[in-house]
């Protein structure tokens, strides 16, 4: 494509782009909505990160120094909720909005108006949640899991704020998921069969099905919390014939598929990036698809591994233990496929690839600690200790968040039209990957030695390990400011102009359109080979 054509292309579409704040409020353009989601997610990442800094500052030394225990509990709770529902999930929805229509050769998402709604209700959800921190009695302090009776009897009015914000987040996710499914199933360019779709599209399709299956269950569970608290029902109140353990069953029936919702799109991102920088086709494409589907199906059969210590019969514990361990098989298929993709490839180590490689290695560490936790008798030792905290931060920070960073670096040139600052990005990568391990690796030892999670104070024997962890935490938090700097530089159009295809080995329709991607793409579907 010549530059002259590019220029006219650009001008032709310039008229269609509304200006001012109205463009963002009323937009139905998948790229605009994707951008909104990604900025929102980045802001929430820093909000949740700031709470993590409060937590780490308090835990820097044993004893109570900076905050009240009740406020500490609010921080752990809201940090979890903000990071899950505000940072990781919206980031994936943003990536889906930006990339899925371009990857399948569609002009936009299938339901653009609903797309606008699904984004714009999110800020309200988080205003309610974050606003509750300033209300009398404070925000939710019962952990992101909101176990009854802690949430129903001791939560005060924060339970209501929590429930309503979760309802809105759930509606937003469900609308986003419906949009993805309809787009992928109905809007593919002619000739784009399901088994020709990029892995990112596949993983998102499966994630979207998980979302519509479990987000309504969460909505039901928190509604029961609400009626137990305010309307005299006894779903989880033993005195009235209910059962608090049942809350945990319903919650984790949602909760376990939820953790795969937060990792399957990562698998898709890494499956796009590794082949691009290994300059080889993805090894075992169809096995990747089947492995993703297998993980999604198995995720419905493992929820009670979060509850081994609730006094289940041995048979149930064995069932959930084995089902959990079976998930290691399809996950292993994926890890080995990525390694095989790199095998004898012509590897280069641009920043997206660095993050993708860190993802493969560190996510695997998180997966292994997950296997350790799956062993029922061992779990009685690890349960509710920092070992669990180490495990889920390895899979969520060095897993999900690193893959989002990788995706951001990989597609930033396409989004902004400018190459990111490569030096700064490498500084960001190395600072992050070193500090994140100083932050989370020692937590394994603290947990194995018996340090409980969700406490503002601890026995003095854990002082050293917590100090190291906190130093890693501050370093990791500050390192993310470098990322913010890189993104802002790109958004301000500083730096080198990017080609339509800045990565030599990249594949997919998104690289056939100019950078930045024009406001409207693929109004005529591309030709699929």
């Amino acid at each position: 494509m010549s530059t002259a054509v590019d220029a006219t292309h650009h001008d032709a579409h310039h008229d269609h782009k509304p200006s001012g704040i109205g463009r963002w409020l009323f937009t139905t353009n998948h790229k605009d909505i994707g951008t909104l989601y990604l900025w929102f997610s980045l802001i929430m990442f820093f909000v949740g990160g700031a709470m993590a800094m409060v937590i780490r500052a308090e835990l820097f030394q044993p004893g109570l120094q900076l905050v009240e225990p009740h406020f500490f509990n609010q921080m752990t709770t809201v940090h979890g909720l903000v990071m899950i529902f505000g940072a990781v999930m919206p980031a994936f929805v943003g990536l889906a909005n930006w990339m899925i229509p371009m990857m399948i050769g569609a002009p936009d998402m299938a339901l653009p108006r609903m797309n606008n709604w699904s984004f714009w209700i999110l800020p309200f959800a988080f205003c309610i949640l974050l606003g509750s921190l300033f209300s009398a009695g404070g925000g939710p302090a019962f952990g992101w899991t909101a176990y009854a009776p802690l949430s129903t009897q001791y939560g005060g009015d924060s339970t209501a704020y929590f429930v309503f914000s979760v309802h809105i987040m759930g509606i937003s996710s469900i609308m986003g998921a419906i949009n993805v499914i309809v787009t992928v199933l109905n809007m593919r360019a002619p000739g784009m069969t399901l088994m020709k779709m990029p892995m990112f599209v596949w993983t998102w399709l499966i994630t979207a099905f998980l979302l519509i299956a479990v987000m309504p269950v969460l909505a039901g569970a928190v509604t029961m919390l609400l009626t137990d608290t305010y309307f005299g029902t006894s779903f989880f109140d033993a005195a009235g014939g209910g059962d608090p353990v049942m809350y945990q069953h319903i919650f984790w029936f949602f909760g376990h598929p939820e953790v795969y919702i937060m990792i399957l799109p990562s698998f898709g991102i890494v499956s796009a990036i590794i082949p691009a920088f290994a300059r080889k086709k993805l090894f075992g494409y169809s096995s990747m698809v089947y492995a993703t589907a297998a993980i999604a199906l198995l995720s419905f059969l493992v929820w009670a591994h979060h509850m081994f210590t609730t006094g289940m019969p041995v048979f149930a514990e064995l069932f959930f233990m084995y089902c959990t361990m079976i998930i290691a098989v399809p996950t292993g298929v994926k890890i080995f496929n990525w390694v095989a993709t790199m095998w004898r490839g012509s590897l280069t180590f641009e920043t997206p690839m660095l993050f993708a490689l860190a993802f493969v290695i560190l996510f695997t560490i998180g997966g292994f600690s997950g296997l350790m936790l799956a062993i029922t008798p061992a779990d009685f030792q690890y349960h509710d200790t920092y070992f669990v905290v180490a495990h889920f931060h390895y899979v969520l920070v060095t897993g999900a968040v690193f893959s989002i960073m990788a995706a951001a670096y990989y597609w930033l040139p396409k989004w902004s039209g400018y190459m990111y600052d490569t030096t700064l990005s490498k500084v960001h990568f190395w600072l992050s990957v070193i500090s994140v391990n100083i932050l989370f690796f020692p937590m394994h030892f603290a947990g194995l030695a018996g340090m409980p999670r969700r406490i503002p104070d601890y026995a003095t024997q854990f002082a050293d390990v917590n100090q190291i962890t906190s130093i890693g935490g501050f370093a990791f938090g500050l390192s993310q400011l470098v990322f913010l700097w890189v993104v802002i530089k790109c958004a301000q159009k500083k730096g080198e102009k990017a080609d339509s295809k800045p990565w030599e080995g990249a594949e997919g329709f998104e690289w056939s359109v100019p950078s930045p991607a024009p406001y409207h793409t693929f109004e005529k579907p591309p030709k699929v080979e």
Partner: protein
Amino acid sequence: MSEQHQNNSILVKRLLLTVAGMFAFGFALVPLYDVFCEVTGFNGRTSNEAATYEMVEIDESRTIRVQFLTRNAKGIPWKFESSVKEVRIHPGETKVVNFLAANPTQSDMVAQAIPSVAPAEASLYLNKVECFCFNQQPLTAGANTKMPMQFYVDPDIPDHITTFTLSYTLYDVTAQSSQSFKDEQKETE
């Protein structure tokens, strides 16, 4: 394009139905869980209805230790304990154990005891002929009472269960029950 729209709206409708179905499923889990617990003895619940004692053969070759545990939920200052900590019983044999409750406060109160059996498997074989936990227990200020519990252990109880614990947690339900008393009064008026 119109065909596309039609396809989209059909799919959207199906997906919305799925969402509604899953929301309903979340609530359906409540009765499903109850049935599951009742059938499997999961979670150590016992039946809320009196079992009728059928003349079964008493298996004198075995003795089961049944231990009793009482505790108060938050906010109920009653004295609540079993007259004995433990009984030894042959499967098939009935026994009565008394539980003592006293209301030391200045006000009339109503309490509800919630039973739980550990290990949960044993709950399937515990049959209560009579239990104070079947009803709410009112006690006037300063009063005390003896509450009987009659039970037998099903002779089918597996051999590996030699001991089990029956625990009662006492909850204050004064507020709820006075509300229902008021409702009843309104109805009679």
